Structure formats: structure tokens, C-alpha cells
């Protein structure tokens, strides 16, 4: 018989490790909450990318590239994580399509901006700022609806 005190450290470690994992969606409500959280994270990443483009002349090239790369990485990981959660019903399928449509669009747009930045700079900064602002608002609205 193992003394209970000895079980505490492994139990704590297991709980700690599990706390960092993505859990499956138990029902439609849980799935919608995950969708809202995903949209919120994506909106945050898009807003950082928008700031980089908007204040591009106040930043050094390597710095702007690093922050845009992080935004692309964040959006990619948001897509991968949410895409990996099984939607529990048809209703959740619709939410899934709606969220992934926006987050994948965001990832593509920010990735394009990163490519442009690495070449000769963003071609049309004003349009990029406008598009990213609109996208961030759509994602925020989505997050708000699924809170």
C-alpha cells in the first residue's frame, strides 16, 4: 500500500500537465465557449499585426518582422488547436466553419504582410490597416457572441 502522502507529488504534476492541455468539447455550449476564446485570441494577434503595419515607420525592420512572425505563429496555433477539437453536433459544425473561416483568413492575410515586409515593405499600408481592423472587429464580435 502506497502512503497517500507519496501520491501527492505525482497527482499534482499530472494535474499541472493536464492544466496546459486542450480539453475536448463536452457539449455544444462548451464548444461555443472554445470558439469564443479562439476568436478572442485571433483578434488579439490581428491587432498586434495591425499595429505593426500602422506604426511601421516608427519601428526597425527586424523588430517588425519578429512581431509579425509571432502573429502568424499565434494564428497558426489558434487554428490548429481549435481545428483539432471535435464538434459535438451539426450546430457546432456551423460555429466551426464560421470561426475557421475568419481565423484562416486572418492567418493568410498576416502571412502575406510578413512576406511583403521581408521584401520591400507593405505595398498598401493604409488598405492593410483597414482590412486588419475590419477582420479584428469581426473576430471580436464573434468572440462576444460566444462568451
Amino acid at each position, binding site marked *: 500500500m502506497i502512503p497517500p502522502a507519496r501520491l501527492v507529488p505525482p497527482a499534482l504534476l499530472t494535474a499541472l500537465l493536464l492544466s496546459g492541455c486542450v480539453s475536448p468539447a463536452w457539449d455544444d455550449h462548451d464548444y461555443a465557449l472554445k470558439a469564443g476564446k479562439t476568436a478572442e485570441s485571433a483578434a488579439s494577434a490581428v491587432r498586434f499585426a495591425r499595429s505593426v503595419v500602422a506604426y511601421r515607420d516608427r519601428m526597425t525592420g527586424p*523588430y517588425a518582422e519578429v512581431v509579425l512572425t509571432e502573429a502568424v505563429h499565434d494564428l497558426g496555433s489558434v487554428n490548429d488547436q481549435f481545428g483539432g477539437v471535435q464538434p459535438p453536433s451539426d450546430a457546432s459544425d456551423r460555429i466551426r466553419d464560421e470561426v475557421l473561416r475568419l481565423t484562416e483568413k486572418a492567418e493568410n492575410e498576416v502571412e502575406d504582410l510578413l512576406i511583403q515586409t521581408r521584401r520591400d515593405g507593405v505595398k498598401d499600408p493604409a488598405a492593410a490597416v483597414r482590412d486588419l481592423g475590419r477582420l479584428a472587429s469581426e473576430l471580436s464580435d464573434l468572440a462576444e457572441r460566444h462568451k
Partner: protein
Amino acid sequence: MKRFLAVTLGILTAFGGFVDIGDLVANAVVGSRFGMSLAWVVVVGIIGICVFAEMSGRIAAVSQRPVFDLVRERMGPRAGLVNLGASFFINVLTLAAEIGGAALALELVTGLNYLLWVPPVALVAWLVMWRVKFETMERVFGLAGLALVVFIVALWQLGPDWGELTTQLVRPPQDEGVPTYLYYAIALLGGAMTPYEVFFFSSGGVEERWTRRDLVTARANVFVGFPLGGVLSLTIAACAATVFMPVAAEPDSLGQMVLPVAQGLGKVGLGVVILGVFAATFGATLETALSSGYSLSQYFGWQWGKYVVPGRAARFHVTVLASVIVATALILTTIDPIKVTEYSLVFSAAALPLTYLPVLMIANDPDYMGEKVNGRFSNVLGSFYMVLLLVVAVAAIPLMIATKAGQ
């Protein structure tokens, strides 16, 4: 000028507590999510670390022995070993994060992936600890870290709504849950009072050969260095509350957290803040690596310190080198340095009583302190903080699990 330079030990130590890699990002996250509503925790942290750092500086000046040396003697080998185990683990974890933080700062300058910078940073840090005098080291990195004052200039330049920032002081955002609020409060307190600060500070006092005549210098280090670190911490949160909070953007990287400075001050400000971040994280690298050597050597009674030639303190230097190698290997696994430090802040919080109870006991022991034992004011404050730290230690890990580390 000489008097100003005399407080660089306090400044360097305080950077480890308030603006190392974990605190830099944690302060920005807190500012973006909670505005200034957690500012009171920083104030509690400043007072707490001042109380205990003053005690440990006084212990070093009066007994000419650092705190950890006395912990084993006063508390016995078993209690000392528990203390050593907890603080050494947190030290190496934090060291890994700091090496990663300095490498991330270089990535922001060069655009080269931070993993390429990790080995050079670790090598240079080890060379500095091996070759450079303690006093030179603390002055260079303590003073260079002052570049972070640029956050204060940036905040002024951003022109925040001061009324709104003041209102936030007493009004937490409604959409954040109480457990998450408390989790970040504990992380901030754990960061402000992180255990290696007192070990480094008292060992630094011995390295500088403080005696009773240096009590004023010890106190000046405490009451200048730590409040300065706290003010910088509050300013970073205020910058984030001004720029990120209104648009619901949450920074999770070093690059994102310095964005307000770039917005406010442009390329020059950006260059200065990255210099400050590098100096603060590199300084914290030295602080944590040396603290590993200090605590282990002092526990086992080995010759330690940079005030003797390395050949005479071989086991101390081997411990420092081994800690640097282990920390470098850990960060080269591509584990996120920011995540490492977020967890180490909470583990620090859980280990706080183990660090500060012995300090309080030794500072009250006339065998070590003679007539320089704690006065009533220090004891009242010290006892209050011990109760607070016990509550924090009990709540830290459950809150981390319940909130999924503040998510």
C-alpha cells in the same frame, strides 16, 4: 557619483524581482487585462521585499555571513535542505527563462531566431561570472538596465487618460473572474518577492565586504533599488493598459510588450528599451546563476564567491557552470521562455515562506545580530508578511490549476 554607484547592487537585485523576463511580460499582460487594478499588489510586493531585503542586508553586514549560510546553521540540515531544494529548482528554472529572455532581446535587434542566440548568451554570461569583478558586473548591468526608464517617457508621450488609469486602481474589469484576478495577484507577488533576490542580495553584501559601518549603504540599496524596480513594473502595466486594453489585445511575447514604447517614441525609444530589456534579463541571468552557486555552496559549507580567485572556490564555480549548462539545455528544447517564467513565478510564490521565515528568525537572533536585532516595526511588518505569504503559498498551485495558468 560614488554614493550613486553604491546602490547598483540594490538596482540589479531589484531588476530580478520586478523587471526580469517573467515580470516584463506578466506586467504587460496584467495591464492589458486588468488595467491598473492590480497595482496594489506591486505596492504590497515592494514593501514586502524592502522589509526582508533590509533584514538580509543587515544580517550580511553584521555577521559578514550571507543568509543561506545561517539558514542551515540556525534551522538545521533538514529544514535547510528543503529550503535549498525549493530555491535551487526555482533558480535553475528562472535562469533558463532569463537566458531565453536575453536571447529574445537580441532576436528583436537582429531578426535572427532567439535559439541561435541562446548558446552565445550562456557562454558570455559564464565568462562574465568567471572573469569580471562582482562590483564591475553589478555596475554595468545595473546601470544599463536603467534604460528601462524609457517606459516612463513612453507613457508620458502616449498621453494616457490619467483619470481612467486612476479609476482602474479601484475597479477591476467585470469580465475577468475572481480566481483569474487572484492568480495574477499571486504571480505578481511571487515575482516581486522571488526567493533568489534575498540570497543574491545578502551574498552580494558579503562579496562587497559590508560591515556594520555599511548598514547605511545596505539600506540605501534596499530603499532605492526595489522601489525603482516597482515603479518600472507599474509603468509597464500602465503602458499596456493605455495601448492594449482598449482594443482587447493581450501581449504574450517580449516583442509585443515593448510595442507601446515604439508607438510612443519611435525607433530611438525602441532601441533604448531593447537595450534595457537585454541588460535586465542578462543581469537576472547572472543573478540567478550566481544564486545557484551561492545557495549550494553555502549549504554545504564550500568556499564560495567572486571575491576569491576561482581556483579557491572551484566547487562554487562548477555549480554555476553546471546550472548554466542545464538551463541552456532546457531552453534549447524550444520550450517557450515566457511560459517557463510564468510557471516559475507561481512556484516562487508557493516557496516564499520557506525563504522568508528563516530570514525573520535570524534577524531576531541576538547570537548572530547582537544589538542589531529587528525592532518592533520590522517584526510587526515581518509577521504580517509571513501570514500573507503562507496564504499565498497555499493558494498558488490550486489557483494555477483552476485557472489553467491564468487563461
